[in-house]
């Protein structure tokens, strides 16, 4: 079985958020429920300021703290390395959200980010929180795929509904290969500067491992010991320290 991992090249990423909206479209997430997001930071003083950004899917950690704290094993790690949530078992305690150092988990049964609530515009049926006409027909509550019911946690699935159908033995899911494009996660597929790669971390000769080695890939927040399966390449792989710069916040 492959151990799926992702590589993101920060030198190529343009911070456009296409990955974020492709994910939102593919997985019908709500505004603010950014399973995939791009996080921006700015530092420095005029005129020498810098802006950094980090595309952030779920890290699908090797040592997932979220899995370890879930009292019902609703969140679990598959044999091919993906951390999923079973919406039939999740009790909505949100402990996994507390335990995730990367902030990738969402409790969408909350106040809407934007009014009016889009769930009112497309009220839910069949137990879903909302049922828009443009809903992706793929659904599997045991894997957290599709639109969730109320009261459960949701997160990036590495587009498991796609990658799980990839032909066996493929080491890298390359979106430029017409035979593989339908199996590629949405965020990887759409990335215009081709800053994202998806492949088998257990195969030493995969493209993802090649990139990690050649460009000295790093992981974020190593001190937590979670060992993400998402690696970052490029010159600014360190997340800036949390530092609300301006004391006079209104």
């Amino acid at each position, binding site marked *: 079985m492959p151990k799926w991992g992702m590589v993101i090249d920060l030198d190529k990423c343009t911070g456009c958020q*296409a990955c974020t909206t492709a994910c939102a*479209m593919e997985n019908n997430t709500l505004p603010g429920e950014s399973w995939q997001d791009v996080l921006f930071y700015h530092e420095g003083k005029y005129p020498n300021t*810098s*802006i950094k950004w980090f595309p952030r899917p779920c890290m699908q950690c090797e040592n997932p703290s979220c899995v370890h704290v879930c009292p019902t094993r609703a969140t679990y790690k598959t044999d091919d390395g993906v951390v999923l949530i*079973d919406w039939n078992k999740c009790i909505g305690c949100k402990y996994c959200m507390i335990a995730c150092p990367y902030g990738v988990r969402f409790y969408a049964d909350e106040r809407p980010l934007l009014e*009016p609530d889009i769930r009112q515009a497309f009220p839910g049926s069949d137990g879903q929180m909302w049922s828009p006409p443009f809903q992706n027909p*793929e659904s*599997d509550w045991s894997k957290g795929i599709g639109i969730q019911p109320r009261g459960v946690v949701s997160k990036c699935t590495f587009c498991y509904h796609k990658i799980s159908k990839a032909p066996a033995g493929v080491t890298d899911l390359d979106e430029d290969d017409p035979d593989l494009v339908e199996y590629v996660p949405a965020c990887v597929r759409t990335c215009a*500067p081709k800053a994202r790669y998806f492949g088998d971390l257990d195969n030493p000769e995969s493209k993802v491992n090649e990139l990690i080695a050649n460009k000295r890939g790093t992981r974020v927040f190593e001190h937590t010991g979670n060992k993400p399966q998402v690696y970052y390449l490029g010159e600014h792989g360190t997340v800036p320290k949390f530092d609300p710069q*301006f004391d006079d916040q209104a």
Partner: protein
Amino acid sequence: MNVLETLITRRRFLQASGAASALAAGGIGLRRLNPISESKAQRLSSGETVVTKNVCHQCPARCGIDVYTTDGRVHGIYGSMNSPIANGKLCPKGHLGTYILYDPDRYKGPMRRTNPNKGRDEDPQFEAISWEEALDIVAERLNGLRANNESHRFGILYGRGWGASCAGLLGTFGQLYGSPNIAIGHSSMCSDGSMVAKGLTDGNESYNAYDYKNVNYLLNFGAGFLEAFRPYNYLMQVWGHIRTKSPKTRVTAIDVHANATNAAADRKLLIRPGTDGAMALAIAHVILTEGLWDKEFVGDFRDGRNRFESGATIDGDDFNQRWVHGLETWWNEELKDRTPAWAEKITSIPARHISEVAREFGTTRPAMAIFERGPTAHSNGTWNGMAIHALNALVGSLFAEGGMFYQMGPSYGPLPVSAGDYMDEHAGRVQERIASGELPRIDMKGTNRWPLARNMMQEIGPNHLAGEPYKLDTVMFYLNNPIWTAPDSKVWEEAFKDIFVIETSPFPSESAKYADIILPDHTYLERLQDAPTYPFEGWPIATLRTPAVEPLYDTKVFGDTLIEIGKRIDGPMGEYYQALDNTENVLRHLAEGFRDDPGTNGVNDFESWKREGVWYRKPYHWRQRRGVFYEWDGEGYNRRMSPSEVREKLLRTPSGRFEFVSGKLEQHADYVEQEFGIPAERAGIIQWVAPEHPGGGDLYFSTPKTAMHAEGRGANIPHSISLMQPVMGGRRTVYLEIHPETARERGIRSGDRVRIRSELGEIEAYCRYFEGTRPDTVVLPMEHGHWAQGRWAEGRKPGHSGEITVNRSDRISGLASYYTTKVSVERA
């Protein structure tokens, strides 16, 4: 089974360890229990998924998209792999297209207004009517105007015209109907500055096509390369390539605030708004004084000795100019004194940075200087643009590999009928009156007021209000919403109260609130429509939208609406449109042209065009190499072109060369003197002209677009709003960027609500501190603050920047100077 596994593992756990290790964070790996529930994936629908071809609608780039539909519901949009623009990728806007199709605030069919009062707070009280009724109402009005010899009082204003089957039909309509105001494009509220600057210097009044993939140095003046420059998706693909190729392309980006584009570049320079021309001139100065110009394209001193010295003139006879014109005049009359030290005082960029950039730009080949609205949306915009574009001539990047050129159009076949055969007397007379200047356009383009502009849409509201040159009677909008988007838009709100408005948008726009008749268009996923490419890599592309679903509501594609109206006009005009029949017929005829010129992808007729979604034919036909121009002969760029051929096809100036002294501008020397106070003999010289900033405030007000915004089609999409301004964290609103010191001086804290004021009035916004903004500038992304457009668009701060943007346009290009108003900011 599961219970047994539970027992086994628990027993193993108890045997294998004490309790402590199990609770430790890095504890032993217990065999995971399978989840109880079924792990079979289910699909919610048993139907097959169909993929159709369409073209994204959220910006002008024309990215081909694959549209995924199951059981008649569209649920996915990805970039099409066979689109040479998209190449399987998309920008953030493209994926949200399904929200546009299923927007809950869409109009469901034609409607008529019953509330005679018009205004921001007036409910139109629309009543639903049939298409027959709606079209008859419109036709009756238009026929009435025509009968009264007032056909010029009907205007069609369009924004994002896509191609021959929609906006392309408008010119003929105007010609047959008899109105100079059909159609008026929005380009003067878009980016005419760059087009006119290029037209005055290299003879092509157009955006450039570029060979980015081979450029080694990119000098970017204010273009949002990673934000809203077009074609955005493609630019990002190119970015990934040029930043990892060998050699890596170096990028210097100049803007008035820090953004993703200049953050990703190798060097960022924050310039005083409206002064880019000064920097460009200084760079040109250094290139010449240090001998870095492209000798083969520009020419050289006959004895090879560089005589360009700061402050000293040259003798024009000493220099043999090859493909440029007026170099000696330019140097002697202007450039010799435009040093980096001089530019520093104007731009606030240190002279050493200017010199470094000039040297990098001058010593790296191929190199390009690109620009768009940033430098040109000011009173001196065209002058800035010409100075920047001149740099491309100096380094020989025009029509070269790794350089810039222009876009070829598609090989469309002719329409079944020719307009000239259907002109009646009235139409003929109107044409004469237009040609003689007796009947000007409502926007006064082409008159003494705006002799060099391509459009002056922003003048229509004020002109109508003043009754100069006349009052309009009826206006139809197509993909255009100037009642809201125009600078000083409140004038339009007043002006349009007494105009009969026909709105074709399917969305409840601000223009719709003023409309008397709604003739709703399909959204793009429901359309059959052509869209030749926006300037791209030069070789022609014609994309095609094919419907993914049957229209959800009782809507009609704009092209058909126009044709149906045309059929109902009395006289031969009606016959013309009877013959034209509908847009599908138009498209079939256009596609016939592909038979003789099959696409590189094999598309050679209407059916294959629909299947592929795009026709294109590589390569671009011309190339300049080491000072020689070649034409494509079928196998390579082998056929040398004569200077007259170059003049006819490529450098279309009076001299047939790149003009540092613009011959076309010299023809309007009196106008230039009158508007800029420049002596007539200097009128055509690329020179520094200082910007004038209206508004009355003390801070420059810049209003750029963010990556999620482009043409604003995400206004009613909550996902779009939630990602609108990532650098500032704007996800429920869009923040005013303000420098911390600037704010503190005014007692403003980060996050405060503030009032932004100009001589036109004030708007409110929330602000956030940003060290990346110039202290003398505040930045508010444009086109937010709708008072219509749908439930998510409305009622959200900030107010619309356009309301306080003074309607002062560049006197040459006519570009509405969106970036040049000066405002004051105070705590609300």
